[in-house]
């Protein structure tokens, strides 16, 4: 069976990390003393919002106003580091399958099966595809998707966000490059008189240029190391903030060695290039003009 069309609003909001999931039954928190209640697990956000704890008994109903069942909270679960869970405000309640079926009147129906193929654990990457194809060939009423295909489908949102972040990164790099060039130019220009004096006392152009480039490189190196430290601190703050906002262990930003290496390398290249550009301009100017005569 083809996948269900995306619901209207959820489709729109899928842009913000949302994918349609099963909406849980509503919960009314009325503690009482049941005879033999079934057990459920609730997520920690619901526990915090409704003031529930393990061992409490609550009434669980599929629709507002219906009597529902008395159930006991057996566990409190924490959200996984799943990007698709981020920004979902719904509370999650986990029930035993037969309990949910009876509560919602679904009979002996399920939404999906998860199947583990034999080849997968031994590293046979093609095994899930083969199993899915076999099921699709032979079984009535099912459509099997390998986990990789589901991952591609559910991660499409994040691929877009990634591309967006990369684009912002490109703009930031352009801005940083201009900033660094500008600062180097200013710093070198500030040294006009010193450079003029050095040239007047007989220092070769190449020596002066080397000194300028070395200075620009050192500034870029120190700046990029400080920048990496600042980036790391900013990343920690961002993670701390968003993990709090969305109540998820998901890490929103990562400062990897690769990223630090890229940033330092880029700064160094920009520092050297801007040092050469600014220095060449200066050493080509007549020394007397540089000292203001």
């Amino acid at each position: 069976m083809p996948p269900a069309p995306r619901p209207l609003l959820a489709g729109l909001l899928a842009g913000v990390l949302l994918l349609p999931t099963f909406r849980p039954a509503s919960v009314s928190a009325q503690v009482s003393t049941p005879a033999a209640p079934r057990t459920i697990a609730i997520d920690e956000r619901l526990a915090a919002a409704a003031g529930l704890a393990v061992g409490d008994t609550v009434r669980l109903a599929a629709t507002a106003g219906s009597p529902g069942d008395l159930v006991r909270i057996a566990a409190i679960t924490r959200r996984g580091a799943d990007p698709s869970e981020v920004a979902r405000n719904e509370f999650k309640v986990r029930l035993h399958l037969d309990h949910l079926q009876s509560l919602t009147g679904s009979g002996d129906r399920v939404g999906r099966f998860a199947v583990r193929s034999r080849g997968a654990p031994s590293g046979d990457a093609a095994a899930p595809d083969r199993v899915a194809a076999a099921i699709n060939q032979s079984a009535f009423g099912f459509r099997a998707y390998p986990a990789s295909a589901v991952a591609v489908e559910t991660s499409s949102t994040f691929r877009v966000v990634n591309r967006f972040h990369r684009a912002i990164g490109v703009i930031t790099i352009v801005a940083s490059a201009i900033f660094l060039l500008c600062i180097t130019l200013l710093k070198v220009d500030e040294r006009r008189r010193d450079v003029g004096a050095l040239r007047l006392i007989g220092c070769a152009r190449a020596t002066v240029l080397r000194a300028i480039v070395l200075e620009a490189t050192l500034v870029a190196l120190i700046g990029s190391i400080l920048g990496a430290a600042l980036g790391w601190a900013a990343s920690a703050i961002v993670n701390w903030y968003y993990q709090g906002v969305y109540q998820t262990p998901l890490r929103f930003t990562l400062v990897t060695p690769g990223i630090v290496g890229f940033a330092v390398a880029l700064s160094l290249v920009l520092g050297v290039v801007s040092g050469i550009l600014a220095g060449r301009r200066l050493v080509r100017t007549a020394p007397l003009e540089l000292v203001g005569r």
Partner: protein
Amino acid sequence: MIARLAIAALTRRRARTALTVAGVAVAAAMLLDMVMLGSGMRESFRGFIDQQGFQLRLTPRGTMPFDSEATVGGATALVATLRADPDIVRVGPVLGGKHFVAVDTGVVAGFLLGIDPAAQGDYRLEAGHDLAAADEIVVSTAWLAATGRALGDTVRVAGGYDPQLRRATGERTLRIVGQGRFQMLAASDRAAAVPLATAQAMGGADRADRVSVLLVETRGAADAEAVAARIEASEARLTALSTEAALKFVDERLGYFRQLAFILASVSLAVGFLLVTTLVTVSVNERIGEIAVMRAIGVARARIVSQIVLEGVALSLAGATLGLGLGLVTARWLNGILATFPGLPAAFDFFRFEPGAAFRALGLLVCCGIAAGVWPAWRAATLPIATTLREEAVA
């Protein structure tokens, strides 16, 4: 003369001025983009909602429109009750569901809306005519492409599909009378609309006299929030969502982008400020002797300050002007990237140019430019003339 001196100071070292303006332009572009991003999604969504012309959406209690498959029963009576409310002008019942069309290569599945043609805001007709009879259907362009059908064709459409028996259920023969743009769906979505009664009948007993959403247009003078509260109080099965509440919901879910926009906008402002401060400070340091001479020959402090501040303003203004163009171009680029979000309505903009907000943001950047020039300007204007002249002479 002061303006002449300010311009001369900026053109004296062209390369660095050009670089600073370029830097400010990039910062301004980023700032503009982030302002557009911050308000764009919200305004775009508001546009969609306003376009529909309904102030309230009534959904099964605790759900958002079409966020689940939940429906409300007794729709006919509910609509009649609502229509009797003196504060309500129009009620548009909508039933959402799936539909299936057999084609040569298999089955095409799509989203089906059962609507009241006299009170709907889900699609805009682009060709043909609107629904007038029970056996008519309006479809999206993507639907026509997927099924290979054309306006005027007759088509067998099923309301369900029994996977065990591999058989369609609730089948109807419908005539394609219109081609519409379904505003809340992506351009690639295969969407179709039929009269509400037809959709209910195609859904079988489960869907008889049920609706997913009721769109409500309130009377001009009536307070939509008050009507919403009244409906919720009298009808326990319903959640009444006003436009503002829907926007608030969207705001909550789109919080990440707004916060990202705010952070990047702040960084852009800081970068612009730093660039202008650096350039103006260095420029003032270089001209400290000239400034001392101007003070010595009787040029007032205020003039010196205004000349230097003017330099900052000129840099920021030039940068902001360039940044406006650059920002619009990059916004298109970034919007193009975000437009590829799965399931996003085609006309939805993440970046929306709101002249008021854009010019306020660029104005803020220029204010930063002014602020950036103030300190070096004040330092220059208050320097001790005699000492500075002596130091300059020694230098």
